[in-house]
């Protein structure tokens, strides 16, 4: 079981937990955090492959992760802003109740 596969297992598990969490919890913020976890799992993969797969130019993996982190930060900020706005409208952030945008 080479370390790369271990890392991938680690990231898959993390991804699965993130997804399960996002699906399970009804609270807006936690869903966002679940999403965050999934993104981190992806970053994890980047570094894993950077570490164990020399091929490409040395720094690309790290740079990709840095950019990913930046973008995720922006995304989280906007997500949370949305949640706050949602809260302002329905005084609670239970996503199951925020289903006005439906067919």
């Amino acid at each position, binding site marked *: 079981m080479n370390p790369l596969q271990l890392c991938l297992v680690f990231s898959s598990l993390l991804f699965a937990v993130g*997804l399960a969490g*996002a*699906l399970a919890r*009804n609270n807006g913020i936690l*869903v966002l955090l679940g999403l965050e976890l999934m993104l981190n799992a992806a970053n994890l993969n980047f570094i894993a492959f950077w570490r164990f797969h020399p091929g490409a130019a040395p720094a690309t993996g790290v740079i990709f992760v840095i950019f990913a982190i930046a973008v995720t930060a922006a995304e989280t900020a906007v997500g949370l802003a949305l949640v706050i706005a949602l809260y302002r409208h329905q005084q609670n952030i239970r*996503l*199951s109740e*925020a*289903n*006005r*945008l*439906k*067919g």
Partner: protein
Amino acid sequence: MDSPADHLWLIPALPLLAAGLGALTPRRGRRFAAGTAIAALAGSLLLSIAALHEALADPAAHLYHNFSWFDIGSGVMRLGWLLDPLNALMCVMVSLVGLLIFIFSLGYMDSDENFARFFCFLSLFAAAMLGVVVSNSLLLLFISWELVGLASYLLIGFWFQKPSAAAAAKKAFITTRIGDLGLLLGLVWLYNSTGSLLLYDGGGGVLEGSVLGALAAPVLAGGFAASTGISLLVFCGAAGKSGQFPLHVWLPDAMEGPTPVSALIHAATMVAAGVFLVARVFPLFSADQALAGAPLHALTVVAGVGAVTALMGAAIAVAQHDLKRVLAYSTVSQLGYAAIFHLLAHAFFKALLFLASGSVIHAAHHEQDIRRLGGLRGRMRATFATFAVGMMALAGVPFVFSGFWSKEAILHAASAWEVSPLPLYAGLAGVVLTAFYMTRLLCEVFLGAPRSPAAAHAHESPKVMTVPLIALSIGAVALGFFGTPAWPWLQSRLTGAEIPGRPLLEGGGLMALSIVLVAIGLGSGWALYGRRARVAAAAPDPLAAASPRLFSFLGAGMRFDALYAATFGRLNRFGAALADVLDRRVWGGAVATLGRFGELTGFVNSVVDRLGLNAGFDAVSGRFRGAGRAYSRRQTGEAHGYLRALAIAFVVLALLALIGGRR
């Protein structure tokens, strides 16, 4: 060139001016209208006398003055005035007789409220007639010809309140119009083949040598010469206007108009116009004489028609009861004799007879049926005297009266005509009949006792009417001497060639025969009507007693009217009916079918629309809407739902990839 012809246009212009002024004068301007009309005609009379003087100075020369009327593209339409003895004579005759009729109608029409309008029409008529006479171009002639037709319509239908007058005017107008159509076609044909309508144009004119020669060449199928065709067409116009055989039906009815009008139309001018036209373009008519092969010569046709007209006119005149209708038919028959000299003489005594009958009618409060007149000899002495002079001139009483000489000249010419003797016999028969019906007329009207209160109260007409009568009777007598065979002054002037005087009795046989015939006519007339004057208005006419059917047949104008009515009338009605049927059936049908076709397409359209499109579209869109709604139900708004769907989809895809990848 300041030739005398330059002033010719003044002759018709003056009456035209008077007509214009007359039209403008209100009804109460009676004196003014009459005054201008008479003055104008007097002026043109003087001018025509002057013109005659100049024409006679050089009889052979045809003085003309042409001017261009308007130009059509390359071609120029030229008109012109012509002066030669024939024109001048006609001018004098027309204006003189016209003037006398104007003066007569002063008295005759003074009780009518449309007095001014009457004189305006008279002047218009005179102007048109003079226009026909002096024109050098056939086109100008045609224009004034039409004006004459118009004036005659207006005058005949003067008392348009009377339906019979209006009908008569229309009838006159239409029949002359038919004739004019022939004239127009002739003119068009002529213009087409010669390129000009001028009679005399310095060699280029229609009647001049070169052009005439070209016309005479046998062009048409059947060996007809172009000139024959043209002249026949022109003759139609003439026949229409002067009441020759087929188109004479309007003339008796034209009596509806006031008597001076009848006099003017039947005696002096209108009828004379036809004969004048033939005389005018006589060279055209005689051009094909030389053509031996032609089956038909224009002149033979003219002579034939003339003979038939004369015979028929005279026959009908015998059976007429209406005073003016008798004279009308006598005019028809006299015109059959178609000769200028006779025409001039006839103009005078016929005008005289008409005016005399006018004064009789005027006196007898518009009573025209001779059966109810009678016994006027004592009451109207002057009228009786002048009427007797006119009757004798017309009948052709020998030696003293012009009628005899002019008729004599025609018979002499007819006997010399070798083509066929028919015209001679017809002429002689005409002489007998004319003498007979004139004496019948004289006896019925003037002799015997007055058979109606109107006739009883008749009294002599005022001086203004009797003076023109007397003048005309002098003319009727004097004119004869100008044209006697011994001293043919007039004829020579007319033809321009010096004709040698024949000894008076040279043609003795023929002259004697005619004298005998006249005597027979007069005698029989006197015998039937003079000795045993009609007792009562309702008494049957002696002739009628003899042969009632023939008499009534002749009385009805040989039922030409019925004939025409039967033929053309029915043709017309048939044409109208055909047109109506055609219109309703064919055209209406087509439109109806189109309409039905429109309905059909509309129906089909609606069906297709309703079934095909709507149903189809609605069904399809309905299904789309259903699908759309189904999809929208999928969108629950539930964020988790979406995520779950994503997850499941991911798993499925991954599985596929894996399984696919493995294999």
